[in-house]
């Protein structure tokens, strides 16, 4: 209660209270129960917290571009921009580039690049496996362990990326399940 309810009728029940406040109250309020200090989740637990699979992407590969390569790549990217298509996971490949777009943009990408890309392949049903781990760069070796597990799964990986709180792995539908299972078993992540 806020104050002792006997002399103060408007006293209310405190819904939550810091442990230290209880300790402060204890000497003058004998009915305050002070437990031993509980662990408080000040910081998130380290390591992998969850694995999520996002569906609905297609992987676009453009190959066979003419030298010099960068102007050829820029021409492709300009066409994509002019078509107002957002892309993710851009990678520069030996003779072209690859990227990911949402499945609803698949037709637009093909229509845009038809005739412009010497070799164009659009791989349907791509998924992004997201491995969540807070401040993952502080966890020494964690990024490499996740990638090792994903490769060892035998899935055909098309892309790996990272950001502060997750790893992103692009693969096909069956591959996403394999990657997820391999990371869970090799890194001891609870289901």
């Amino acid at each position, binding site marked *: 209660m806020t104050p002792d309810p006997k002399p103060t009728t408007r006293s209310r029940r405190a819904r939550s209270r810091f442990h230290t406040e209880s300790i*402060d109250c204890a000497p003058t309020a004998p009915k305050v129960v002070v437990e031993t200090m509980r662990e408080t989740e*000040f*910081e998130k637990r380290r390591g992998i917290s969850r694995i999520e699979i996002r569906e609905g992407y297609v992987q676009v590969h453009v190959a066979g571009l003419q030298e010099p390569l960068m102007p050829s790549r820029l021409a492709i990217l300009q066409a994509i921009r002019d078509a107002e298509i957002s892309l993710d996971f851009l990678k520069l490949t030996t003779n072209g580039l690859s990227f990911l777009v949402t499945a609803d943009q698949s037709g637009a990408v093909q229509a845009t690049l038809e005739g412009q890309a010497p070799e164009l392949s659009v791989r349907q049903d791509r998924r992004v496996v997201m491995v969540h781990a807070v401040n993952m760069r502080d966890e020494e070796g964690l990024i490499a362990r996740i990638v090792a597990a994903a490769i060892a799964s035998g899935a055909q990986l098309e892309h790996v990326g990272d950001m502060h709180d997750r790893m992103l792995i692009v693969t096909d539908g069956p591959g996403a399940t394999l990657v997820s299972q391999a990371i869970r078993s090799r890194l001891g992540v609870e289901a």
Partner: protein
Amino acid sequence: MKFGGTSVSSPEARMLAALRVVSAKEQGFSPVVVVSAIGRRGMPYATDTLVNLLREIDPNVDPEARELDLIVACGEIISTVIFAHTLKTLGYPAAAFRGGQAGIRTDGTYNNARIVGINPISLRRALEEGKIPVVCGFQGVFVSGDGAPGGELTTLGRGGSDTTGAALGAALKAAAVEIFTDVEGVKTADPDFVPSASTLRKVSYDEVAEIAHLGAKVLHPRAAEIAMKFDIPLWVKSTFSDDEGTEIINLEKVPGRRTTGVTHTGKLVYLQFDFLGAPELHRVELETRVYEMMARYSLNLYMMNLSPTGIGFAVPRDQYPTVEDLLDGLVIPLGTDGNRAIYLFQIGTIPSREAETQLQLLASLGEIRTVRLDLTEGCTMVSLIGNEVLQQPGVFHRVLTVLHEAQIPVLQTSDSELSLSCLLPESELNRAVRLIHDTFELADVS
């Protein structure tokens, strides 16, 4: 109020920091101060100097993690006592506390402990007595429950002092947590490269965390994470300027697409592995082994790349000697009977003495397949940070065009929801940061 190493590095700096504390007190607040060790690398009581006292005895014998924590914590203890005394000389009663004395309890991971609980009763008492508590950043105590008196001193690892500041703010239900440093807040770029870089007035926790993830030092995300969880206003300010600084807030409070700034990592070495000669099964095994090795030696990987014929990644230049020791001349035999192959890793086109020796030793065993690693030294990574950066059509095109027009070669790219990064020659770093900053008109961002 947390003061970093540069804010307490000299008597003059400490006096400025102390006057900020006094000013808060005079405004009616009850400040609690957290300080880092005095100064940076090379200074007498800086963390690195203290660690070197052990390493200099015999560089081949690694200090134990527990003893490392004990010696490193001395830096903050010295700083705390000096800062408390400085306040006293200004006529303000103060009391110095070690992390454990301030009630900071951690798990038992030496060198990288996590705060699990805080009982700030001694700080409350000091405040009630009108004193300004000054607490050692970066440290706590692990109580194992096996009856060891006093518990074990632990340090919090990267971002430790910022984390101490935020956690104490949460435990004490502070009006705000202020992280004082030598810059005016979170900038749109490194002002050494871009003098016109502006100070962001508000930035989200996720953006700050991504900046730290990409190698820049502003505020450690651990501190921001705690402040966001307990809904405590968190500010980054300069000890040496009256600029209002940057407030770190939840992403939900600043929704929408925007570009926030340009950041860069330190020096990197980019490695590309060619597994062209290996059958699929062997390639998977070789790639897995390489990454497992990188994990075992705690190597920090950037710009990871997969292709049908190989893999690639960048490592910080100071970690490259370890990579070279591990990989150059590495032999991995795989398969059985007809499917058997011996793979020899070779860095560069000309085999090193190690690789040649291995080749001679293995010659009698049959065919040796060489896995070549192409090395690109002198790289760095420049990143554009922002919320939903890539949902803006044409952002990649814009960045690559401006770099191409300036004849800055881009060796590889990577991206996430919050960033877009380019690997490029270190010699072009300054120019690349300025060009991207100007292209996105970040000097006008606030």
